[in-house]
């Protein structure tokens, strides 16, 4: 039986809990409230880490460290920004650290060389499947490969801003808040990232 088979207790529909109440309860030591907060945001944190780091192992580490830091520092949260912003600030800082470390080590994060040849660790992640027109599949595969390569070549900050804007749908103002910079700086970063994407992918689209 697959891993999903053991789960699934559907929470009560229509029971709305104010986020601020949850945070206050969690600050007062209510573990269930903390767990509810985790549940509300952990999928997006994991997706963010996965898309940025392109490594399930690293994404898992960032997930653990993010929520552990939130748990340990929740008392310091003073509602002067949204919980989402605060949480993303922690998660993005951890991701940036990882990306910078890789840059220093010149690490190739997703591709491993094995006795059987080259292996992409992201192959263990749900991917597009072969279906329908093989030419279309080949073409979309080439585009995907080029997009991944180009994303890998962005600077950590460019990558972060691009990820937050394009895939997470955050506005630049919020991205500035999350990254501790101005909206204008985030905008410049996004501009550079999209220019690089356009240059690299121009021939495909």
């Amino acid at each position, binding site marked *: *039986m*697959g*891993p*999903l088979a*053991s*789960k*699934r*207790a*559907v*929470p009560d529909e229509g029971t*709305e*809990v*104010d*986020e601020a109440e949850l945070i206050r309860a969690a600050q007062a030591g209510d*573990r*269930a409230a903390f*767990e*509810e*907060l*985790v*549940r*509300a945001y*952990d*999928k997006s944190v*994991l*997706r963010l880490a*996965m*898309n940025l780091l*392109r490594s399930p192992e690293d*994404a*898992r580490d960032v997930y*653990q460290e993010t*929520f*552990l830091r939130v*748990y340990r520092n929740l008392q310091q949260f003073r509602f002067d920004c949204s919980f*989402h912003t605060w949480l993303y600030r922690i998660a993005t800082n951890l991701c940036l650290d990882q990306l910078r470390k890789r840059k220093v080590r010149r690490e190739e994060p997703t591709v491993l060389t094995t006795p059987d040849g080259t292996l992409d660790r992201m192959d263990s*992640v*749900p991917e*597009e*499947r072969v*279906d329908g027109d093989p030419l*279309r599949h080949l073409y979309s595969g080439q*585009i995907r490969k080029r*997009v991944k390569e180009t994303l890998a070549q962005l600077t950590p900050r460019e990558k972060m801003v691009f990820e937050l*804007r*394009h*895939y*997470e*749908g955050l*506005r*630049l103002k919020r991205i500035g808040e999350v990254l501790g910079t101005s909206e204008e700086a985030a*905008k410049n970063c*996004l*501009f550079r990232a999209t*220019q690089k*994407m*356009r240059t690299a*992918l121009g021939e*495909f*689209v």
Partner: protein
Amino acid sequence: MSESSNCAAVREQFALLLYGELSFDEEERVESHLDGCAECRQALEHQKALHDAIDGVAVTPSPALLNRCREDLSALLDREHPESGIVSGMREWWRQLWLPAVGGWKVRVLRPAGALALLAMGFLAAKATPGLNIFGVNQGGAYQAMGLGDFGGAQVRNVSAQPDGSVRIVLDETRQRMISGNLDDRQVRVLLLSAAKDAADPGLRAQTVSILTGDADAEDIRQALVFALANDRSTDVRLKAMEGLKRFAGEPVVQSALARVLLSDENTGVRTQAIDVLSARPGQDLDRQTVGALQEMMDREDDAYVREQCERMLRSIKASSGIY
């Protein structure tokens, strides 16, 4: 500035234009240039195609990875506070947390349904492009033909849920205005339904669909969710639409949409959620199309869990697991 350098300057703004991140004046300059420059209009279409291509590499973490993360965190928290009285129940709790997209979040910021909506309307029209899945099929009936005619060709730029439960919508039109109303308000509803279908920004579509899921009892909203599930290029949008439809898995239209997801959606995470939604009510009636889809999945599905669930469902209705 010469015409060619003007074109180059305008084209540099296209990405930010599609993200809705240009200022009023910047947008004005781009729009007025586009009105008179066919080449730049074509280049903008090119940029939209690029955005769609980039959408295609988004990774959705597998349910198995999310579960491992939750179990690891649970163990870490146990070590942080082993004296906690609720620790003993944590393991079971974490097991029950699986896949929040199906379970539904309780946090109000994600469920503003039925509440007062506040609409901040922006400026300029016609920058949105349908976020359609080019490999998908069109479903959703009359919803598909719906537009923003009543708003003078305006486009929804951004939507967000407010802490008080209201909805804030930024609308691009020829002038800026702000209106307020609730989800029963026809204008609000039309704007949200349109944004879910037509907005260029996948994040905006996802947020809109999230808001709409709170009122999925309404048929027009269900139609919008079915459309998004079948057609949206963004995995996140499709997952959110499915979350809104899970209570209606017994309805033929929803069942048909889920069956089509199983057969044609390229993302394993989406197919996994589709089979979970379909199998959540043991013993429910399945139409012939769905049964056929399940049988076909036995032959073509790569993911062991999805295949296993298909087989289980077929067994439960005493149907064969192959196509004859």
